[in-house]
């Protein structure tokens, strides 16, 4: 696998909901193994971008490519991308093992191999031994990590993470971010929409700041955080710094 | 997606029709003096009159039954509230652990169908002597019992919507007397529950037939059963009136509770 190969590419994506333009002229390219963070105020379009990549929304115009294959018209369940949601969305009637193994089951993987892969994924998110528990018995941080395991167990091309720490108590955030760090270190391609500025600055390869559906700043963290070029981005980052979150 | 919307609409329209059509038929029967056999396009608009309803509601029997039903309903509401308000306030403010016990007792009436209850009443109360069952007001405690699931739930829900215990403690720690606290903290939160419980109880009693008829009390539903033969149109029109009044009461109650932010997720549950 060529590490410099493009894993995910948005090309001129535009999405409107009625009168509201959620995304416009959205161009973004991710190389294999990169971590891209989408930042911006609420309603800026970062969730929309992720949902379009996953296939839950159709763009009005523009295309999405996965490894240079046009997936724009493909239904979500055929795209082989993992997604983790803000509210975990674990299947409440299934155990951790069943949740994580569900993606394998629908792909026809047999029980023995499923078992092994599930155990491996659960270990990777630092939850060994909890395979038999049910979602309502787990903390928010644990549930989110199970959601991560579920999304990566079938080795997706890209992992899409939509504000995965926003619903968590502060002390649980770090355990989830640690897992994300480890995933990046192991070579996974990740797109992360988040408010966690510190994490964005320290761990991303590319930072993409959105506002009102447009990209107002894009580049490596060293550039975006210390020398933002657009005024709007400067304002946004300044307000974050002032609030002490950076 | 479009196709699913189409079928959804179809289903809702069919079910809505099922709800509405019988009422239309009832209204037509009550208010149109044209026997069904003679009904046709030409006679559709003829002979509509509210006479049968007027005759029925001014009749001796109706007034007797109606007056009894109203009194029974009012007494049941009062008795329900007198018993339940202190009890529910107590378990919400003082002893939350007792709440499950009260809740359990409040759903017990579900497992005893009114017909079984009335059978037991005649057997059990014989011991007390016939004086108790002779009075029509002996129905009141039993009406309180059968409305218990709804009335408890109404009060319980409205008190449980906020953490009443903490609010009461906050109020007391700010220096308010018990009277003040009751007036300004407990009662406002109870208001919605009281309204709901009252409406539910009232509507239930107005329509209750089983116990009343087997204990030979002459309430509105009993009137309906009795006059059916002698004055079908009038009786049906009174029945329709009862349905409309009950529906309005429930609807109003729903409206009121929604505005205060308490959704009634299922009256009977």
């Amino acid at each position: 696998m060529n590490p410099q190969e493009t894993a995910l590419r948005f090309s001129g994506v535009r999405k409107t909901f009625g009168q509201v333009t959620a995304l416009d002229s959205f161009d973004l390219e991710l190389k294999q193994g990169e971590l891209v963070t989408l930042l911006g105020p609420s309603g800026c379009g970062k969730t929309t971008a992720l949902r379009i990549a996953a296939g839950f929304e159709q763009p009005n115009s523009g295309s999405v490519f996965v490894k240079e294959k046009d997936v724009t018209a493909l239904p979500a369940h055929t795209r082989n991308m993992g997604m983790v949601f803000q509210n975990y969305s674990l299947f409440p009637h299934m155990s951790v093992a069943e949740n994580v193994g569900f993606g394998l089951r629908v792909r026809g993987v047999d029980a023995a191999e499923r078992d092994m892969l599930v155990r491996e994924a659960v270990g990777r998110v630092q939850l060994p031994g909890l395979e038999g528990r049910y979602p309502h018995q787990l903390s928010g941080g644990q549930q989110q990590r199970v959601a991560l395991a579920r999304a990566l167990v079938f080795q997706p091309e890209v992992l899409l993470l939509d504000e995965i720490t926003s619903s968590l108590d502060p002390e649980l955030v770090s355990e989830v971010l640690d897992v994300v760090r480890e995933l990046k270190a192991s070579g996974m391609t990740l797109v992360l929409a988040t408010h966690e500025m510190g994490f964005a600055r320290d761990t991303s390869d590319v930072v993409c700041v959105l506002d009102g559906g447009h990209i107002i700043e894009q580049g490596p963290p060293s550039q975006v955080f210390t020398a933002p070029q657009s005024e709007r981005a400067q304002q946004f980052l300044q307000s974050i710094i002032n609030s002490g979150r950076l | 997606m479009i196709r699913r919307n189409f079928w959804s609409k179809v289903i809702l329209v069919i079910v809505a029709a099922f709800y509405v059509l019988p009422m239309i038929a009832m209204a037509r029967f009550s208010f149109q003096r044209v026997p069904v056999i003679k009904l046709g396009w030409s006679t559709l608009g003829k002979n509509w009159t509210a006479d049968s309803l007027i005759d029925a509601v001014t009749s001796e029997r109706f007034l007797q039954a109606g007056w009894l039903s109203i009194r029974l309903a009012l007494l049941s509401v009062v008795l329900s509230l007198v018993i339940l308000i202190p009890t529910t306030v107590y378990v919400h403010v003082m002893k939350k652990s007792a709440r499950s016990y009260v809740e359990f007792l409040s759903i017990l009436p579900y497992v005893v169908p009114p017909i079984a209850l009335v059978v037991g009443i005649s057997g059990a109360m014989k011991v007390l002597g016939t004086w108790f069952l002779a009075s029509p007001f002996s129905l009141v405690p039993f009406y309180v019992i059968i409305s218990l699931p709804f009335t408890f739930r109404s009060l319980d829900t409205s008190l449980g919507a906020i953490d009443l215990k903490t609010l009461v403690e906050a109020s007391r720690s700010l220096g308010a007397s018990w009277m003040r606290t009751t007036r300004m903290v407990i009662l406002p939160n109870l208001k919605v529950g009281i309204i709901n419980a009252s409406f539910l109880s009232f509507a239930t009693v107005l329509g209750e037939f089983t116990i009343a008829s087997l204990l030979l009390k002459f309430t509105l539903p009993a009137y309906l059963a009795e006059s059916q033969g002698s004055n079908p149109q009038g009786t049906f029109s009174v029945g329709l009136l009862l349905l409309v009044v009950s529906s309005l009461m429930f609807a109003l109650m729903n409206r009121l509770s929604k505005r205060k932010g308490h959704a009634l997720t299922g009256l009977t549950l």
Partner: protein
Amino acid sequence: MNLTVRSERDSLAERVPFGVFKHMRSWVVLAPFTLFVAVFLLWPTFSVFRSALQPVEGSSKPAMLEAISGQYLDAILYSVRLSALTAGLGAVIGTLVAVSAVSLNQFKGLRNVLVGYSAVAANLGGIPLAFAFVASLGMQGLYTKLLSVIGINLSDLGFKISDFSGIVIVYLYFQIPLMTLVMLPAVDGLKVTLKEAAASVGATPRQYWRSIGIPLLSPSLLGGFLLLFANAFSAYATAYALSAGGSNLVSVQIRFYLQGNTITGKSNLGYALAAWMIVVMVLAMSGYLGLRRRSERWRK
């Protein structure tokens, strides 16, 4: 001068007058309520069972056992059949209504109207409802006439509003809204995000329904069925009015046994039927409550 210790002890509830309650044992405060339920619910129920366990005149078996044999069993089975049928039909149609309403959720207010109406309709019943259906589908019914005009003659088809099929239709009037009320929160609980999560790991819509949608709905479906069954089984007034007291249902038959009791000496059978009704209700309601608890746990 240990002020803090004193204020801890001097807790709010310890001030009179209501504070007095704190000193009273809780059972004292709850006594009026408990007593009321005991006298007006538990005592009559106990009385039912006491008589039901006595033998019927001329036999040595307790009445309850007598009641489930031979001809008496017919009434019980008839009621069970009616209740099961109306529960089943009501469950299916009520669920369809709930699913339809939720999928049309772009129409704001539709849901509220539906909940409001269902809350009303689920409690309608008894005599007025029977009247409405007699006016619709009875011998002189408006729709009977309408149907005959287009060639469907109900009496030729052997349909009578007072028969089994007629009662089924009338019962559905309140069974359907009841099921709708049960299923609306359950269908809501199938949040869109679950469907998306399933799609994101590669499940087709059918796989989603089979592995996630249906299993999550099942407790509510089954619980709703039990609730509807209990509701139909305990109904009396509607069937009584439709059949003019002649129906084969247990509830109506109980009356027959008790009205003629002193002559036939079979009054204990009436009590026995009532006792069996209570047993059925306890089973159905426990099932319903247990299932509801499970689905609520998932909806957290």
